[in-house]
């Protein structure tokens, strides 16, 4: 951790979530995320990763504790005020969660719902500036030509790009990313992760990324937080994530291959950089 903390965009304190079934999903989680900081949240299935990021935008109602976005308390907000805060947090989902029967453009524009009145959104009369921004972002992720295709006609990687555009359309300060690559093949996974990282850098966005794949997390995140049974058991830069830390998070296992693989993957990526054309184009635009 750096000595001088950057201004926090998100502060989670003493967060507890107990489901009606009695399961304690989060026990006293404290987390502080600085402006522009990209944090990977790792941990075994059921550790509470998904619950944690859903507590931030209150898709899941926390039992107790505090969530502050830019200093403003999010827990306990009324529905109107909550919607206003949700606009500042873009969310990217595991199974893309696109509105399958609507077009790519409509899905992108749905990121502006929080800023648009009901009837305007009903008749798809979004402000010209929003439509223009959607085109710009779709172009940025390489999907401009797909604008009028239905979302269910797209491949997995393309859908996740639309999901990213939707989140960015909110002009958020924070991205909540829930297992963005769990349904994608390894190559597409890396492309998507890199895209998210690039966009975060371009826009100075902070992000919490839930991720299963430890190698991906080490490769892309600036900071890694390990969650086990609803509590944070590791918090530090990727380099300090050693076998002992992984054992603390996941339990006993021979971690040498996993730790090695992370470095190997990075090397492979270096080669990829020159061969994947759309990455070049993306870099050029940035």
């Amino acid at each position, binding site marked *: 951790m750096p000595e001088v903390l950057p201004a926090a965009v998100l502060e989670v304190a003493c967060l507890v979530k107990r489901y009606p079934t009695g399961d304690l999903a989060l026990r006293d989680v404290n987390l502080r995320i600085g402006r522009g900081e990209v944090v990977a949240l790792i941990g075994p299935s059921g550790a509470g990763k998904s619950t944690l990021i859903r507590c931030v935008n209150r898709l899941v109602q926390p039992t107790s504790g505090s969530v502050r976005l830019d200093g403003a308390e999010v827990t306990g907000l009324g529905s109107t005020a909550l919607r206003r805060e949700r606009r500042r947090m873009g969310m990217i989902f595991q199974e893309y969660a696109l509105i399958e029967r609507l*077009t790519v*453009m*409509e899905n992108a524009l749905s990121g502006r719902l929080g800023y648009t009145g009901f009837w305007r959104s009903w*008749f*798809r009369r979004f402000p*010209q*500036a929003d*439509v*223009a*921004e*959607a*085109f*710009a972002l779709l*172009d940025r992720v390489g999907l401009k030509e797909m*604008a*009028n295709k239905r979302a269910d006609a797209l491949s997995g990687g393309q859908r996740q790009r639309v999901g990213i555009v939707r989140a960015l359309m909110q002009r958020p300060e924070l991205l909540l990313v829930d297992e963005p690559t769990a349904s994608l093949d390894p190559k597409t996974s890396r492309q998507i992760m890199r895209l998210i990282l690039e966009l975060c850098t371009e826009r100075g966005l902070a992000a919490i990324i839930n991720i299963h794949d430890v190698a991906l997390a080490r490769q892309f995140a600036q900071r890694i937080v390990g969650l086990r049974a609803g509590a944070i058991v590791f918090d530090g830069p990727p380099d300090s994530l050693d076998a002992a830390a992984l054992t603390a998070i996941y339990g006993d296992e021979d971690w040498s291959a996993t730790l090695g693989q992370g470095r190997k993957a990075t090397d492979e990526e270096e080669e990829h950089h020159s061969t994947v054309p759309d990455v070049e184009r993306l870099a050029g635009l940035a």
Partner: protein
Amino acid sequence: MSASHATSNPYAAQAAGWRPPPLIGSRALRWALLLGGLAWFVAALVTMEINWARAAEGWQRGARFLAAFVPPDFVSKWDDIAEGLLESVMMTVVSTVLGLVLSVPVAVGAARNLAPRPVYLLCRAVLVVSRTFQEVLIAILFVAMFGFGPLAGTLTLAFATIGFVGKLLAEDIEATDPAQLEAMRATGGSWLQGLAWGILPQVKPRLLGLSLYRVDINFRESAVLGIVGAGGIGATLNTSLDRYEFDTAAAILLLIILIVMACEYASGVIRRAAL
């Protein structure tokens, strides 16, 4: 953001050109459907002869009718109500059983994978006739043939049951896995054994579901057949409405709703227990 400002011009032009995709692709067809629909709507409303003065009176009567539900009068016509309901229930039982017994062979005959062509066509014809005409129309004919009373109603419902269960069951039989029937035939079983072991286990859940659903439908239908003299609670209801005895009518309607709810609940329980 300033960088994208410079490049926002091409996007702005594109944005201005973007329209939400229409439901119907062809412009001509879209307009034709819209105008045609509108023309039909206006024509339908204009040609519908509505006696507005009489309809306006309806508010008062409607209010009176609703008021009759609190409290409904179960007492003063109870004997008629009980007799009518009991008759409806009995018609339901007999017609469902009779209809099911008959619909199974018809369904087998109407299944393309089991029946020879002439049998198939005959059974399909029976199903089409049964499904085309509303129960009440059949009841009118049956009353003319068998005379007034619950028998005409029972036969009507049994006939309608054949059409309903027969068609859906035939579709289910056609969708069965042919390998299972083949396997039973391969063991040397007879044609009937083939049905019982190769087909029946596959369609049994559907058959049970359809039967239970049909009990429900038959009861609801039995409540109207009385209007044309084919027995059941309908006659009592018709009389009470004719005489403006709304509180008795309310009682009957509530009882019908209650019995249907009970049927639905029971069928849910049976389905869970049997499957």
